[in-house]
Each structure stands twice: as structure tokens, then as C-alpha cells.
């Protein structure tokens, strides 16, 4: 969805990735790994009251 490696833009239309080929795969792999790392790192952060959706 975001990032120069994606083959689709935000509305789902196919596009040529800015970084094609093997480099695309490597970048994508590290991007997901970074996100996963951040999620695990901050997973225990207490949740703020999410009042908008109601109880």
C-alpha cells in the first residue's frame, strides 16, 4: 500500500514499483521486519480509552 516497492497504489491500481527486481523483495522484507519489531516492542503499551466506538 505504501512504499516505493509496492506494485499497487493506495486505491489498488497496479503500477510499476519505483524499485523493481530483487532489491524490491529485500526492501519489502526489511520493511515488514521493522514493522513487526516495532509492534512487538510496543505491544504492552496500555490502551487509551477508545470512547468513540462506544462500549
Amino acid at each position, binding site marked *: 500500500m505504501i512504499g516505493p516497492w509496492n506494485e499497487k497504489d493506495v486505491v489498488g491500481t497496479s503500477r510499476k514499483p519505483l524499485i523493481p527486481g530483487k532489491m524490491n523483495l529485500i526492501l519489502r522484507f526489511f520493511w515488514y521486519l521493522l514493522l513487526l519489531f516495532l509492534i512487538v516492542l510496543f505491544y504492552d*503499551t496500555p490502551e487509551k480509552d*477508545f470512547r468513540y466506538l*462506544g462500549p
Partner: protein
Amino acid sequence: MPQINILFIGFCAVVVPVYWLIPDGWRRAFLSLTSTAFLLYMDPISFALLFTLTGAVFFFSRNYKSDRIDLAVIMLLFSTICVIRFTQLIQRLQGEIHLLALVGFGFYALKLTHYFIEQRSGSFRKHRFIDFYSYMLFFPTIMVGPIHKFDEFLQSNRRIRWNDQTFADGLERILYGYAKVVVIANWLIAIKIPTFAAGLHSQYPASSVIVDSAVYGFHLYFAFAGLSDIAIGLSRLLGYQMCENFDYPFLSRNIGEFWQSWHMSLSSWCRQYIFIPFFAKSRNLPVALLLTMICIGLWHEFSIRYLLWGIYHASGILLWRWYQKHLRPVLPLPNGRIWQGIGNGFSVAFTFSFVILGFTIPRSSSFKEIINNFQIMISG
């Protein structure tokens, strides 16, 4: 939210592989069974109410075809929403929060109403109770939406085939969803930014009110959009295509555009079942718009602050329409791409400020606090 719970992640990690391993014909039953188990585990009272309402709506949408029955069923659904919301309001006023916290109640009440109205008007193809039941209890979307339509669900039901790309898209979407909720909303916006902005409170009271409203709005957006991403991604893992809920709302160029990109499934529902019918009957645009926005506000919570929030946005939309119709044609606005770009940038900034200021209303705990916050902002 339960979606962030490790138990929910574990539940999905078991359900999704089993779902694809069993024969095609069993998948709908399996999905209904797992959704039932999920809701029973979350809250048996919610399940009992949802099951009863689902059965009643399915039965009455097929039998006793008369205007009186139609009205009675819609009134029954409406009064159920009112009774539950009023009970929640009284409990909140008495300080007993979440005694009647039904899982996803606001969402399935709207789905039931949509189903009943469309089934009565003959919009759906022939289907069985299990289709409707699996739609109502579809566990990825039951808690925070999107409020998807039954015909789209039926269409997805017929096209369920394993697809590597859809599955990968689903996983990617879930990852983005968790990142939005855990990293951006819960950590960065809810903890880091308020700590950073704490110094403003004593020095610049007006700025602190604006920053608090911005923090509230951004937290809301990232948490809600993240949970919607998880729901949409999880649906894709099961082979279903869900409607979107957000489309960069803070980059909208006007308030009308904002409501077309913020909680899109709710605003689309309200447009279809409140605004259009009421406008068609009354031919009074301001009243139809005001009624719709008040309903959107009160759907979140029965309270003065959400009522005012609805009126605030309705006034914004009406003012914008008035500007478009009367003021803009007579304004000597310069033409050309550069000027258009500057104009768009100004429109985005203006709409963003309007929306962020509006969040001062629901984030305040009482009417007095709302007045107080606006007074601080005006006095500087």
C-alpha cells in the same frame, strides 16, 4: 480492544488454516460456528441478544408482509438501540461504566436494519438463514465494522477461492493495522506526544486545548483505521472483500469530502437509510442533513457532547454548501495550476482545523467543559 489481545491473534492463527483445509462446502458452517464460539466467549449476553434479533429479523423479513409489520420491526430495532444506549447513559452518569457493554452492538443494529429494509424491497438474491447468520456474526467485523452490506457479502461468498495475492494483501493489511494501533496510536500519539506537549498547558492554555484536540483526533483516527485494517485484512485471509472505512480523511478539501472519507461505511449507511428517505419526503435539505448528522452523533453515544458534535458538523456542511452555491461564484478567484494548488492547500488546512476543533466537543466530559475549552481557545 480485543483485536490487540494475544488470544484473538491465536484464535485467528488456528481458524484461518483450518478454514482453508476443510472442504469448500463446509466453510460457511465452520465460519458460523467459529463466530458463534468467539461471541459466546466474548460476551454470552451479546450473543443471546444478537441471536434473538437475527432470528426475528430473518423471520419477519419473509413473513407477514405489511407496512405495519415493517414499521413495527424497524421500531423494535430502533427502540432496542435507544433502550441500550439510555441504559449505558444512566450507568455512566451513576459511575457504573460497561455494565451493559454489548460487543459490537452499534454495528449489528445497523446491519440488521439494512438487511430488513433491503430484503423487504426484494434487493437480495435467494439465500439461506446460514448466509444471513454468518453475515451477522462475521467475527472479523463484528466489533468495529466496517458496516458491510449483505449483497456484497453474498457476492464474496460465491467467489471464495484460495488466492495467493489476496492472502498476502490480507497479511500486509493486518501488519499495517497493528502498526497503526500499537505503535502510532497507543504509543506515539497517546503517550509520547502528550508527554512532549505537557509543558504547553501552563504556558499557553489555548495552544494546549488545540493540541489536546489534535491528539484526540489523531489517536481516534489511527486506532480506528488500524482496527478497520485488521478487520479488512482478516476478512481477506478468509477470502472476503470488505468495504473500506477511511480514505485519508485529514487530507479532505472540504467538510463534505471529509464525511465521504471518514468512517465511510457508517456515513454511507446514514446517507442511504436516513438522509435520502427523509430528504425525498421533506425536500428540506438543511433539516435532512441536520437529522442525519445528529443520528451519526448519537449513534456513538447518547449524550449532549455527541449531539453537539453532530450539530457542529451539520452546520459545517451547510455553511460549505452555502459558500459553494452563493459566495464562490462571485469571488474573484485567480485561475491557473499554481493558484489551484495554493487553493487546495488552503482548503485542506481549513477543513483540517475545522475537524480538529470539532474534536474538542466529544473529548470533553461535560457541557461545562466544552464551553470552558472554547472560551480558553477564544481568549488565547
